[in-house]
């Protein structure tokens, strides 16, 4: 081939050479369905565990203690299953490194949360997780959420029975952010994320409080044989608890929304720019 010919060919697009590198796509439909079912089921277990203390039959003689142990075990199980599921589908070296670095960054943010001006209850970790989930997809968001909680628990010595709840819940924050529609207008997308962030900030507090109130409540509802007004006691306690913690939760929601509003657009731009590098297509 002469130099000139080669240069001419140079200008024309090359034939695909790396097609064999594409992942095998057998049973894609079934896989997708199974994966969806796993997420739905795990989510369902989470919800049941959450509302269980309200609906459990009073006649049962089991204690809140064993209930708590059971919910922790079940949630850990769900978490493990989802991680196995997500890991297999979304992970390569680029994603691993990016996740690692972003998780570290968010964990550091959480670590300095008292440094960011804001009243109690405010936490800066939701905004980055929502943004990452929205831009990089729900699986990335899920991993980022769960691992951020895990890493910050590890570095602050905060490993405890509450950790699976936190990991699970924040994982869902990132996961659901990935489900939001990709809007063409950046501003519209930002407003959507702001609303989304507010809701999750609020919801996270409610969920974590609901999880933790049986701890705080102890066995009041069950250990007392007469069963006098048990349901009422539970409800009153819960109502009071939610009322008092609502202030905190609203702060968290508003804080997340404000953070997204102020820093959302440039961050989204930076992440979107990076996304092209993250997910190149081999031609």
């Amino acid at each position, binding site marked *: 081939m002469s130099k000139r010919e080669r240069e001419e060919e140079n200008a024309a697009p090359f034939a695909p050479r790396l097609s064999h590198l594409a992942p095998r796509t057998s049973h894609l439909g079934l896989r997708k369905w199974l994966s969806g079912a796993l997420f739905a*089921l795990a989510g*369902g277990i989470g919800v049941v565990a959450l509302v269980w203390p309200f609906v459990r039959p009073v006649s049962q003689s089991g204690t809140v203690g064993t209930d708590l142990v059971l919910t922790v075990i079940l949630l850990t199980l769900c978490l493990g299953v989802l991680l196995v599921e997500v*890991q297999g589908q979304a992970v390569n*070296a680029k994603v691993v490194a990016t996740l690692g670095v972003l998780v*570290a960054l968010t964990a550091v943010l959480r670590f300095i949360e008292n440094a960011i001006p804001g009243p109690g209850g405010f936490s800066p970790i939701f905004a980055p997780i929502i943004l990452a989930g929205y831009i990089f997809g729900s699986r990335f968001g899920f991993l980022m959420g769960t691992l951020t909680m895990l*890493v910050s628990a590890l570095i602050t010595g905060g490993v*405890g029975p509450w950790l699976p709840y936190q990991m699970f819940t924040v994982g869902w924050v990132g996961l659901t952010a990935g489900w939001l529609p990709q809007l063409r207008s950046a501003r519209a997308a930002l407003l959507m994320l702001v609303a989304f962030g507010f809701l999750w900030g609020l919801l996270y507090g409610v969920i974590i409080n609901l999880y933790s109130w049986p701890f705080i409540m102890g066995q009041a509802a069950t*250990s007392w044989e007469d069963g006098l007004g048990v349901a009422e006691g539970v409800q009153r306690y819960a109502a009071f608890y939610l009322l008092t913690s609502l202030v905190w939760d609203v702060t968290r929601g508003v804080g997340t929304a404000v953070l997204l509003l102020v*820093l959302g657009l440039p961050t989204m731009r930076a992440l979107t720019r990076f996304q092209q590098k993250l997910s190149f297509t081999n031609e």
Partner: protein
Amino acid sequence: MNKKAISPTLLYSLFITHSAMRYDVRGWMVWLLVTAVLIMVARNPLYTILLLLAVQLVKKRHYQPENQAFQLSLWRFGLVVITLSALFNLLMVPFGQTVLFTLPESWPLIGGAKTMEAALYGASNGLVLVTLLALFMAFNQIVPVSDLVKLMPRALPDVGVVLLVALTYVPETQRHLQQVREAQAIRGQEIRSLRQWRPLILPLLIGGLERAMSLAEAMVARGYGSLQTTRPSIGLQMGLLVGLLAALGGWLAGQYVGWAGWLLLAAGVSLVVALVWAQGQRSVRTVYRPRPWRLADSWLVLAGLSPAVILLFVPNLQLAYTPYPAFTWPPFSIIVGLTLMLVAAPALLPRKL
């Protein structure tokens, strides 16, 4: 900004663990679980105080000095929790016979007779919370982060690497944050409002992402991902689904039909655990300098299990106590008390292997 909170030297210490031999982290897990169950079950303030003391004894003996960075004062925190808990319960729970005072019935939520029993119950419940917290604080201080990371199931090799990368990059990110803060201060930037976080967060984020790319490149160049078989097969997915379904069904059914439901729950849990374990066996990853199981680890497991085992053989066990409906002194059995003190058994083991 709070200077101390992001001082770059603060976090290094977390990652410096001495190579001196430590106990196997699984031994500590056994101790943790047994003690947690005991704290939840033995709801008698006298026993709870014993357990709290035992936990503190073990911590005193085995804590790693470099894990101390984030201690909150247990005593101050405990006092606040117990007081608040007593106050809450006093206001919220209308049970008990020793009436202290009465609030008008028309007040929502908190109206009615306020009893000493309710306050006492709240306080003792607060004590349980504090003890649980003390237990986990002790665990966090005894076991170094690097050992905790090793508990990551083999079925999650990539997630494990993410975790390691993140832990490596936490101090790195802190240093970087400090640099960016200085660089922006040089440009006359002062942080007065949230908007001014932009020049701080963006270089940190973009720099981090760029670094992530070169890190990924370095990992790939060193063969990362060559032998990964992490993608779950359809069979595995189905198995996990069935396992979770069984666990959920069993849990719900257990409430109504008793043991059959619990059996189903156990089966579901076992299935999931077995599947995840089997998936882990497919991973080819090996471990550098695997830590052998030592005799001392067995001693730790025995020590951790001892209170639970012996409790099974104490007749007429009366662990729970409630001040309702009328206050009585909590009962105290010497045998039970001594047995619970076995929680402190690991404190008898040598500090280092």
